[in-house]
């Protein structure tokens, strides 16, 4: 019941947080003295054309009215029309969502799948050569800019070794599957050559995105495990003759992961931000690329839509993290 109460309390804040986000981003995006009607109409637009467009899209209304209309529309699932593509923003986001989610999912999988064991290994072999090498790697992971790493990987694996494609999500247009995750859709269709092609396309973007995420997870897991290893309960278990392997992986890790879990929430946010750059470099047809396009075209509605999406994802992931922490650490209940 306490867990349900916690979830309920967190959920109450979700709409308020999102409302604040929408108001903030709406106001910031409208401070820029740009005329969306001119963007929409193009360079050769006539005055009549501009007036008609301003009226059609409500740009001639006072800003508070525009904000209110926008909030009401968003509540109804309508994020407006993209000024550049002239299609519904919600549809654009929905169409691109699987590409970004697939990229984010595999990046997190790699980051957590490698980061946690490596962090534990570094903690257990503290100050060994392995720990020192891993420290250099993780510091590099945190320091290297994503776009630079992406280009380096392209040069090495695509241009010199020729083992991965330079860009894209698939060699042709994607499978007409149900999930939008090409790895799953290709598997469901039984087309294994397509599956390999999809994985080859995934390799470099996932490596680029997961590297800094993994570095963070390694650092926090290592610190958490080292801290927990000095606890009395570990000494007690050792005295009781419980095998080290069991102590570390069943008890120490559970306690140490609470800090890592918090970081995973933050890493996910960074991962979404990083996806904007990585998707642009690898021409990954996801939301990151959509965001870049929107910013370049001063497409207010699209920028707002993307920001709301990121906000929702961030809030949702952090809600899950909060719940996960309570599950892992009974003290939180």
């Amino acid at each position, binding site marked *: 019941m306490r867990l349900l109460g916690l979830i309920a309390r967190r959920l109450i804040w979700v709409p308020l947080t999102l409302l604040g986000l929408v108001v903030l981003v709406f106001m910031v995006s409208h401070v*820029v003295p740009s*005329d969306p009607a001119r963007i929409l109409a193009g360079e050769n637009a006539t005055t009549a054309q501009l007036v008609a467009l301003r009226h059609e899209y409500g740009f001639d209304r006072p800003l508070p009215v525009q904000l209110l209309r926008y909030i009401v529309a968003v509540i109804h699932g309508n994020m407006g029309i993209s000024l550049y593509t002239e*299609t519904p923003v919600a549809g654009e986001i929905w169409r691109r969502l699987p590409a970004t989610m697939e990229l984010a999912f595999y990046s997190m999988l790699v980051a957590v799948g490698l980061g946690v064991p490596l962090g534990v290994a570094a903690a257990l072999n503290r100050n060994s050569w392995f720990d020192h090498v891993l420290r250099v790697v993780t510091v590099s992971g945190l320091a290297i800019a994503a776009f630079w790493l992406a280009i380096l990987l392209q040069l090495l694996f695509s*241009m010199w070794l020729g083992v991965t494609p330079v860009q894209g999500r698939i060699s*042709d247009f994607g499978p007409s599957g149900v999930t939008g995750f090409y790895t799953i859709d290709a598997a469901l269709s039984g087309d294994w050559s397509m599956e390999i092609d999809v994985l080859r396309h995934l390799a470099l973007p996932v490596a680029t995105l997961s590297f800094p995420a993994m570095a963070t997870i390694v650092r926090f897991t290592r610190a958490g495990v080292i801290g927990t290893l000095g606890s009395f309960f570990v000494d007690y278990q050792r005295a009781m003759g419980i095998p080290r392997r069991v102590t570390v992986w069943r008890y120490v890790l559970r306690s140490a992961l609470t800090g890592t879990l918090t970081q995973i929430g933050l890493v996910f946010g960074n991962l979404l931000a990083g996806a904007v750059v990585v998707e642009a470099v*690898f021409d990954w047809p996801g939301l990151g690329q959509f965001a870049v396009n929107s910013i370049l075209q*001063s497409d207010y509605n699209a920028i707002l839509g993307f920001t709301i999406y990121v906000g929702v994802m961030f809030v949702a992931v952090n809600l899950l993290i909060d719940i996960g922490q309570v599950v892992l650490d009974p003290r939180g209940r």
Partner: protein
Amino acid sequence: MGGRIATSCVGAAGDGMIGGSDGRFVLGRRELALGAATLSLAGARTALAGGTGKFVTANNNSYDTLDPHVVFDIGRIASRLNLYDALVRWTDDPPKLNMWLAEKVDISPDALSYTFTLKDAKFHDGSPVTADDVVYSIERILALKKGAYGLFSSVVNPGTTKAIDAKTVRFTLTKPYAVFMAVLPEMWVVNSKMVRAHEKGGDWGGGWLASHEAGSGSFRLAHYDPAVGFSANRFADHFAGWGPKYLDQVEFLGILEVASRVLGLEKGEFDALDGYTPYDQIRRMRGKPNVQILAKPSLRTMYFIIHNRRPPLDDVNMRRALCYAFDYDGFINNLLDGSVARNAGIIPDPMWGAPKDLQGYTYDLDKAKAALAKVKGSLRTLTINALGGYPQSGQAAELLQSGLAKIGVTATILSQPWPVVDAKLGNEKLSADLIPLWRSAYFADPDNWTGYIYNSKQIGRGNSSFFSNARFDELTDKALVLVKQEDRQPLYEEASRILVDQAAGLFIYNTNYYGAFDKRVRGVRYCPIGDAQDMRWQWLA
């Protein structure tokens, strides 16, 4: 004067500007007295089995919509050029206006009525292209008020275009408009029955046409994903027929990152890049064994907009001082490594109407100081509004700022994104003193660079310089109502000279087009309007 009809024919497969000249055969040609050259492709229906596979182009723009009537830019022109046809079409360099869906045009003596007779052409669903489709297409443009609407709105009123019969359509203009033929290539003809069937709530089928096509173009849409691009298969029944070699499939991908486009071409994932590849990358690719570069003069001039009404820039001597204070050679040869060509006036030199002997300004600080000494009003700090994200614009601003400092004029540079600058254009109070930017070929007619952006009637719209000159207006107005190119040409030449004499703008260079292609590519026919993305001529060796 009624329009005489000329027909000339070009087969397909291109003239091989790069990589050979296979497949081109001209069946006959007579120049039109109208000045608009016409080509007919009837008789060139050489449909041989010559498919050469799939051709992938990496483009710097995404294909966010396929609706041909809501966009009007070069970046996304591939979907319009390859999926749709218009009554007339630009090809080659210098651009030639060819009869396309139209067999012939009759122009009334008062130049108000244009009657087109259509060829036997089919849409991709097999239905014939009719006059009703042409009428629907122009009405759709006028109703949507988007894309190329601005080109037609001042001369074509809704409801005035009539289908005389299934093959004859008549446009009735509100006033003589010599540029009408030049802007018609942007009036893409859609299958009216198909679009009507998908209309919802008075949207003219916009919701559907954004992601589908209803055209008669050389290629038929196969796949479309706005986040990726589109692919299209050859339309074997295209009215223009096909040459001995052609592409089976074309694919256009929106690849935003320059490095990814370049690496993809070098690796063989792409066969061509768009025409906006930075020159340093072009220079680097020249040495690559599997890449060939096509370099052609383009029709895009760089210049500074000068606010001609705001003191002290309302004084011609002040404007001349600015023009003498800019280091043209330093900018073109040092900063841009000679990748562009000096253009003394605003009309690109390859375009007719550009005076061949035009003497532009040179970098001469003594003359600048002499002109400055004649300025009657007081000087002040000038504001140069550079375009953020366009390094050349910023470099030009800094170079002018430096030159002005040497003659005792101070200038500040304000760098802002294009949408912000654009929003202020045409606003006499908000627009900056000087804006370094480009004028592209929206239509291949001298009016695009003269009357449209300097005639006083365009102030607040195309004329963002607030330039006003009675003789210039007279010339450009008169040129719009004449039909023959030979009659119009001297008017534009004089107009161009006036702009230079009055220093209405600071004119710098004409852009070159650099197209990067895979070595196997043949038959490219570059046209400044559309770059080299009209794929019906190209094939792979």
